[in-house]
């Protein structure tokens, strides 16, 4: 019998699965992985993902990479799409202990007026971008629905696709954003480990794990075309997190079948004034195994790579299974118009220009794509 939505959602965390999944991951043998690699790639089941994420699968990264590359080319073509983030505010009411925007961190906070944001957007557009991602801290008193809707309306002449990575809103609010031209929302659960989540989010509205977990349902129901999901890698065991993330994605894909799900892979890296030690930090090989395993389970999911990762690694990853990549990013409000004194959310590890990234994409035999949508779809 199909479980109701509420049950499915509450089970989408590690609490009920941790021990079982942990045991299953350890029990996978090389033969199981080989068998998995012989079945047609791209179809999801939790058992398949367990086998591909297992420690035993680590010695099969090369055949996994080859399958992932060829599946990505078959489904997405020899192309990689480019986008740029536009940070509009680094004011935040939350106190996520890992984040540079943590409200307890002391630095000059900046909010861009719509006009200032448009000035940054002009720089982004001049670099060739047509796909823009609006990013903000949880700053609901300034970055209101009206603010975002006004900004989106004014961006529509210059950008063919506008998405947002913002604090949770209601379905009605998301619907307004959609009508204004924002048609994709990214919201990371950060971690699917409820207990760790509570530790990492000691105060502010973000403390509410369930609210965050249910939020993608709200923006998907509001008609958003693109659903961006992810965990902040480094907060908990990456294998378990990937399993929970995949269950969440599979649920959303079935229920909101008109929307396309993509995965992002933000990895914890030093942010301003946050230099604690972290027990779950994720290594390059872990990150690669996670990307490959997800690709081999979700043939058509977008795989997004940001400038948090260093240039050398990005050069290799674009050839595996990445479908969308940012370039020339500034993670501080006003950064594109030369304000480098405002607080960054994270340090950019790849500061090459968009033109240089496009060249990297070409060098691995892919066409950089700047436009893959049209505002005419929505109006």
């Amino acid at each position, binding site marked *: 019998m199909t479980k109701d939505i509420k049950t499915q959602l509450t089970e989408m965390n590690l609490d009920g699965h941790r021990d079982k999944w942990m045991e299953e991951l350890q029990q996978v043998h090389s033969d199981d992985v080989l068998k998995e690699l012989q079945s047609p790639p791209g179809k999801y089941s939790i058992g398949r993902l367990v086998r591909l994420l297992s420690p035993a699968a680590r010695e099969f990264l090369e055949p996994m990479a080859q399958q992932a590359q060829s599946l990505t*080319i*078959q*489904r*997405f*073509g*020899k*192309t990689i799409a480019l986008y740029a983030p536009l940070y509009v505010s680094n004011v935040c009411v939350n106190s996520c202990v890992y984040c540079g925007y943590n409200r307890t961190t002391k630095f000059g906070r900046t909010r861009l007026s719509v006009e200032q944001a448009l000035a940054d957007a002009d720089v982004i557009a001049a670099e060739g971008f047509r796909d823009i991602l609006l990013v903000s801290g949880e700053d609901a008193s300034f970055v209101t629905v009206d603010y975002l809707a006004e900004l989106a309306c004014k961006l529509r002449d210059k950008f*063919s696709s506008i998405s947002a990575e913002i604090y949770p809103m209601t379905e009605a609010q998301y619907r307004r954003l959609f009508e204004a031209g924002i048609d994709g929302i990214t919201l990371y659960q950060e971690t699917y480990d409820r207990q760790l989540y509570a530790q990492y989010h000691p105060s502010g509205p973000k403390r509410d794990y369930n609210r965050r977990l249910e939020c993608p349902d709200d923006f998907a129901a509001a008609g958003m*075309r693109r659903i961006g999901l992810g965990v902040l890698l480094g907060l908990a065991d990456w294998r378990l997190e990937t399993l929970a993330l995949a269950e969440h994605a599979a649920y959303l*894909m079935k229920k909101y*079948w*008109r*929307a*396309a799900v993509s995965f992002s892979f933000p990895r914890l890296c030093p942010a301003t004034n946050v230099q604690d030690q972290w027990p779950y930090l994720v290594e390059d090989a872990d990150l690669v195994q996670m990307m490959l395993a997800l690709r081999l389970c979700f*043939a*058509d999911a977008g795989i997004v790579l940001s400038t948090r990762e260093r240039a050398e690694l990005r050069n290799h990853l674009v050839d595996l299974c990445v479908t969308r990549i940012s370039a020339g990013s500034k993670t501080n409000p006003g950064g594109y118009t030369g304000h480098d004194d405002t607080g960054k959310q994270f340090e950019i590890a790849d500061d090459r220009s968009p033109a240089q990234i496009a060249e990297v994409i*070409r060098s691995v*035999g*892919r*066409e950089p*794509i700047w*436009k*893959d*949508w*049209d505002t*005419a*779809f*929505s*109006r």
Partner: protein
Amino acid sequence: MDKLVIAGREFQSRLFIGTGKYASNQIMAQAIEASGTQMVTVALRRVDIDNPDDSLLSAIDRKKFLLLPNTSGARDAAEAIRLARLSRAATGIAWVKLEVTPDPYYLLPDGEETLKAAAELVKDGFVVLPYINADPILAKKLQDVGCATVMPLAAPIGSNKGLRTRDAIEIILSQATVPVVIDAGLGSPSHAAEAMEMGADAVLVNTAIATADDPVAMATAFKLATEAGRMARLAGMAPQSKQAQASSPLTGFLRNE
């Protein structure tokens, strides 16, 4: 080779080409050239249709190839109609490959919305080439509202699986009053030849060419296969038989005096 006529326009080539998924616009242009095609479809989402300097559009010689804008990405009739109208306003091209694909994973066409959009666009003066599931009744309805072709899929788009919908396509072919173009899922030249042998009027290929190791050589292979399949169809193929035919084992006695 006999000519194909769609909405009064003649085509020597029965191979139509898509423009997505190529490693570069240069390779795309060379593959288009090698394919011998005269009709090239372009996703409106991918290009600035009103900008002649658009890097993809400018790689296509509009004097040699009819540009067929498509509405890929449209989730319903209203979106597809809006895109088609914007495209015609910007380019003057009244042809449209109608794609209404609300599911972003398999990109399967929505028959109900496609029919709705087709009826309205035809009324508005468009030459409509709808991408559909291999659904014979829907194909008839689309003919009835005035579509210039029907374009049933052989298999899910990008799957390279070949003629998985063979039985339904045979029915469509037997009933069609407009050209039938087999679209989506043709993964190898033999698939294209097979579709043409069955009596398809044309085939449309993208993924199989664009993602081949050598797209230009693959485009040539599809050109030859499409021509071979058409030629075989016109030549009147000998019927297949599972067994060797003994000469009149049951009625031979009638000839024995």
